[in-house]
């Protein structure tokens, strides 16, 4: 096997001295290997098809965090607190006091009553008998259902209804402050009491859409339906995951078109696409075999695997086309391409994989899964796109069109590359560096505003303008309610949860919290006791206090909502409603509770954090903030180390890593400016972006070094680098960007955020490698010394 070009400038990176063992192993046993690939693909593909969506929310939270440990430990005691849906039935023109509206509300109430999963005894609406008005009289209490007994839809009975509602204290709870909507409140069973199967959120959510929203909105233009609740949110999320299939299709199509435009060769287009799809099947199959499912995060990994596969495939196609243009037959061209690429390719992919594995430091299962899935995927790409791909190509070869394209295009392209090679010019490089420094300064400045956590109103998983969040906003605007709840668990000995001292302590903490910025209101047994004690004393507000008399306390909480006391009265929750779920709001509330607990926890009671969506978010934020710096350190450490091992030069490492660092900082600045917080979804972006982004640098630097060692000047060497690999690098950046850009349209907010940021990272890392790397090289590299050193060897 002779290659005049490579004989001259032998170098350990591009062309090992001996004909590589691997090359012989692979190319001398082509048929056997291909058959093995076929069977493996069939086997893993079969498993891949069986993989199940797994939207387990436990995996999205940091299970090791003490808050979550507490929450899960007391999960059974808190069960009925959060699982309900609220359906607001809105009348768009006029108010709720019409015969027509009340009739619709009655039908909806009945409809909800019969939905599977609804705890019928707890169902509440104006039409249920558990919604009552109460009045204190000389003889004691007097009351009745808010719907008058003799209700007939007449003006008089509607007026009576209005009076009853005003007396019932349901305004702001079941009835909107503006009397334009009322709520049907449906608590849900976690699992079907008759079958014991867990509630199918997707199916339940679909029922709500079909049987309630679609039906009644169609029936009457004047009726609007707004639905919120955990079950609905999960239902919408699962529905959102479905959109991924479309994105996959669009991504493959776009990539194929781009690839053809690039290679003008049908084989050079279809084979990388095919190899990359094989990689995806392998990855999914392997995940299935390892016992993983697909959650809303890891469902994105196949896109990455596909894009990475294509980008490495492009290098192979590019290299083969160049060799083929020199007149080599397909198998020789494939062997040469393999020989030239397997070390930088493997290095790039291994650094990707290590970059991903740094995500294992974050104690959130979905991120760990993401790390495993992505790491595995990249390992697979090494096999499929560095072995399978050249093997297939060695049979098919680049078409004549493709070869011609390389030859014709070469001349035209050269002018462009010539211009770009000035990035390495002594008078351009300082300007580039200056721009980089300015960019760095701007990045650091804007990055200061970077926040941890979710920043938008409503359910952070979904978009602000999603149907769910619009419904949520409607209900928050018209009712006294907050979607962000922090639950403090107050633990006592059995049967002691209603003791005076316990209620007093809760009451005091509530007042401290009420005085904490960002806390809207709070509820606990202490409030129930005060309100009922007042009611028992003829409704006189002067009695609004927790009685020291335990008998009175016991009487006052006899009819407390069941969620506020667990079965053996050893745990009672304190619900804190927050204005939003911004990190500082959560921090302020959580710190207050912690300070209080530390000072006051004793043998009688223990205040434990935390449950509720805000509790989970507070824990997640804490885990993420502490993991963030460690993750960055590791990912940069690993990437630098790999570059150092490969190129054995600190200067090389700086040339490659500095552009990445600049991109990372700019990415954080963009997050800060566009209001994206550091969260479970965006934390992996930097690791992924850096892990993958380093590929560009590795490809460019290895070529650059190669040409420098041939004795070329820096600019000349860089020109040759761009000629040989520039196109592939640009193309890689574009492919990777394309791979993730479709996520921006995902109905799931965090997927959109990830898509947007990764798109930026992938493209900008490419720009950084092409533009900034040569400028740094101008200042850092000493070509004469490198040459001398290489010769000495």
């Amino acid at each position, binding site marked *: 096997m002779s290659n005049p070009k490579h004989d001259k400038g032998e170098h350990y990176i591009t062309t090992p001295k001996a004909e590589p063992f691997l090359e012989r192993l692979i190319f001398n046993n082509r048929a056997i290997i291909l058959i093995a690939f076929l069977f493996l693909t069939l086997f893993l593909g079969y498993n891949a098809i069986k993989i199940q969506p797994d939207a387990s929310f436990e995996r999205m939270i940091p299970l090791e965090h003490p808050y979550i440990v507490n929450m899960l430990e007391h999960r059974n005691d808190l069960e009925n607190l959060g699982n309900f849906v609220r359906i607001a039935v809105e009348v768009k023109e006029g108010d709720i006091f019409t015969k027509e509206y009340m009739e619709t509300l009655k039908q909806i109430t009945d409809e909800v009553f019969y939905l599977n999963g609804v705890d019928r005894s707890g169902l509440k609406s104006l039409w249920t008998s558990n919604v009552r008005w109460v009045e204190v009289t*000389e003889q004691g209490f007097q009351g009745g259902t808010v719907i008058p007994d003799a209700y007939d839809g007449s003006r008089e009975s509607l007026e009576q209804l209005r009076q009853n509602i*005003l007396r019932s204290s349901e305004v702001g709870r079941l009835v909107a402050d503006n009397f334009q909507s009322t709520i049907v409140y449906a608590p849900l069973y976690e699992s079907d009491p008759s079958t014991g199967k867990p509630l199918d959120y997707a199916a339940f959510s679909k029922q709500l859409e079909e049987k309630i929203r679609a039906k009644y909105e169609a029936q009457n233009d004047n009726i609007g339906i707004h639905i919120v609740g955990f079950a609905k949110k999960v239902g919408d999320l699962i529905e959102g995951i479905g959109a991924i299939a479309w994105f996959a299709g669009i991504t493959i199509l776009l990539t194929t078109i781009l690839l053809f435009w690039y290679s003008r060769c049908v084989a050079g287009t279809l084979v990388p696409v095919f190899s990359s799809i094989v990689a995806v099947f392998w990855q999914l199959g392997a995940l299935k075999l390892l016992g993983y499912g697909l959650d809303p995060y890891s469902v994105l990994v196949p896109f990455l695997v596909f894009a990475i596969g294509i980008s490495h495939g492009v290098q192979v196609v590019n290299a083969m086309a160049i060799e083929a243009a020199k007149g080599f037959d397909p198998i020789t061209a494939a062997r040469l391409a393999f020989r030239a690429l397997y070390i930088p390719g493997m290095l790039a992919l291994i650094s990707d994989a290590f970059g991903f594995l740094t995500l294992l430091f974050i104690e959130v299962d979905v991120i760990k899964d993401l790390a495993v899935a992505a790491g595995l995927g990249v390992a697979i790409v090494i096999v499929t796109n560095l072995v399978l791909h050249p093997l297939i190509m060695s049979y098919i070869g680049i078409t004549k069109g493709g070869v011609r394209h390389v030859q014709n295009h070469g001349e035209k392209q050269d002018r462009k590359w010539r211009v770009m090679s000035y990035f390495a010019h002594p008078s351009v490089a300082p300007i580039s560096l200056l721009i980089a420094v300015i960019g760095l300064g701007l990045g650091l400045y804007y990055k200061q505003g970077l926040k941890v956590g979710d920043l938008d109103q409503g359910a952070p998983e979904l978009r602000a303008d999603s149907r769910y969040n619009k419904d949520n906003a409607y209900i928050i605007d018209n009712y006294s309610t907050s979607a962000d709840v922090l639950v403090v668990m107050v633990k006592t000995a059995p049967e002691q949860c209603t003791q005076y001292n316990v209620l007093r302590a809760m009451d005091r903490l509530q007042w401290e919290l009420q005085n904490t*910025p960002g806390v*809207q209101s709070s509820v606990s047994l202490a409030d129930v006791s005060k309100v009922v004690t007042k009611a028992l004393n*003829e409704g006189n507000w*002067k009695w609004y*206090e927790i009685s*020291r*008399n335990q008998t009175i306390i016991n009487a006052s909480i006899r009819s407390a909502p069941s969620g506020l006391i667990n079965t053996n009265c050893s745990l009672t929750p304190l619900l804190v409603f927050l204005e939003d779920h911004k990190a500082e709001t959560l921090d302020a509330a959580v710190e207050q509770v912690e300070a*209080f607990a530390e000072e006051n926890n004793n043998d009688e009671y223990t205040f434990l954090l935390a449950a509720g969506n805000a509790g989970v978010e507070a824990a997640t934020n804490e885990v993420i903030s502490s993991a963030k710096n460690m993750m960055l350190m590791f990912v940069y450490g690993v990437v630098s180390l790999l570059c150092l091992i490969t190129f054995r030069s600190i200067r090389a490492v700086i040339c490659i890593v500095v552009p990445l660092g600049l991109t990372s900082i700019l990415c954080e600045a963009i997050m800060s400016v566009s209001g994206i917080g550091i969260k479970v979804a965006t934390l992996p972006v930097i690791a992924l972006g850096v892990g993958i982004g380093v590929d560009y640098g590795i490809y460019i630097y290895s070529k650059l070094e190669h040409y420098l060692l041939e004795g070329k000047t820096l600019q000349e060497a860089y020109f040759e680098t761009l000629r040989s690999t520039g196109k592939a690098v640009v193309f890689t950046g574009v492919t990777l960007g394309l791979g993730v850009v479709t996520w921006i349209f995902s109905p799931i907010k965090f997927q959109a955020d990830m898509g947007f940021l990764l798109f930026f990272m992938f493209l900008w890392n490419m720009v950084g490698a092409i533009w900034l790397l040569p400028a740094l090289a101008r200042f850092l590299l000493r070509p004469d010394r490198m040459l001398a050193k290489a010769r000495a060897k």
Partner: protein
Amino acid sequence: MATRLTRKTIGAVCLGMSLLAAAPSVVAIGDVLETPARSTTLAAEYLLNDVATAGERIVAVGERGHIIYSDDDGKSWTQGQVPVSMTLTAISFPTATHGWAVGHSGVVLHSSDAGETWAVQMDGIEAAKLAIAAKEERITELEEELESAPEDQQEDLQWALDDVYFTLENMEADLDVGPVNPMLDVWFENENHGFVIGAYGMIFRTTDGGETWKDWSDQVDNSTGYHLNGISRITGGALVIVGESGLILVSTDNGDTWEKKESPYTGSFFGVIGTGNVNEMLAFGLRGNIFLSTDLGTNWTTVPNEAGSTLNGGAVAKDGRIILVGNGGAVLVSTDGGETFGSYFRRDREGLMTVVPVSQDRLVLLGESGVANADATGKNL
């Protein structure tokens, strides 16, 4: 409720701005009698039960030991220093500087600087001990009487004695639990002489500015121990106490002796005020019941009105208007000495406890969610 939340939100935002990056407050829980009221900017947005004027200053009491004062007719409020943190129920300022406030745990607080700082004068334990001592004394008296009494009176005396024993036992049982019963109202004539009244017929009198207190229950015909809810002086100088189950007590000798009046009503009265005319008064309570007496409580006439829900408090303006307020956001105004009332129901329907008519066209309303500045009818400004 939404308005309440909004107001709280604004409060929280203001607080947030003033406390930016504030460290969490560290508070150790102690008994409410030993734990000072937390310094807060929110007191004017939470339950306020009663109000008094100390010269030009308005001073209000509420939940969690809140005592706040305003020198600009209720527009802005400052929190006083209070060494306790239970719900306070009533306040009285006989002079511009000396004032008393009472509340749960039987607490009696005193201020000699127009409400800025407060000190405990008596708590429920001391009050209960005083009451128990009085009952024990009464028992001794009754037993002596019983011994020397003629046969035909013995049975009645024995009944009376049993009653006192029963009351005493209850008091002792309560004291075992702690200071369980609240004071419900306070009235001071001047910086020396005053009464505090409360649950289960508690009534104490001082003539030395609260340094010592005397149990006054023996002077009051209330053997069933009904709650005493309100005490007022009416024009002409008579003192009136109203309470549970239609109880009406009148004293024409500045509190030395009290006469129980025949009641026009069996439900509870929550307050009584003079109309501004000599010997005339209005008693009010549950379900919008208002009764007018023009003869020191001997005869009563029902005052028809639209309130429908409990009336908690009231005031007479300088120009003679009488304003009563109550649950359900009811604001009742009379311009004819209490014979008829016009009514307005506030949009938020939140309970009102009391009112200060600060000018001809402005009311300061206090209640369930703190202070509201309203026009003369009760509508929000």
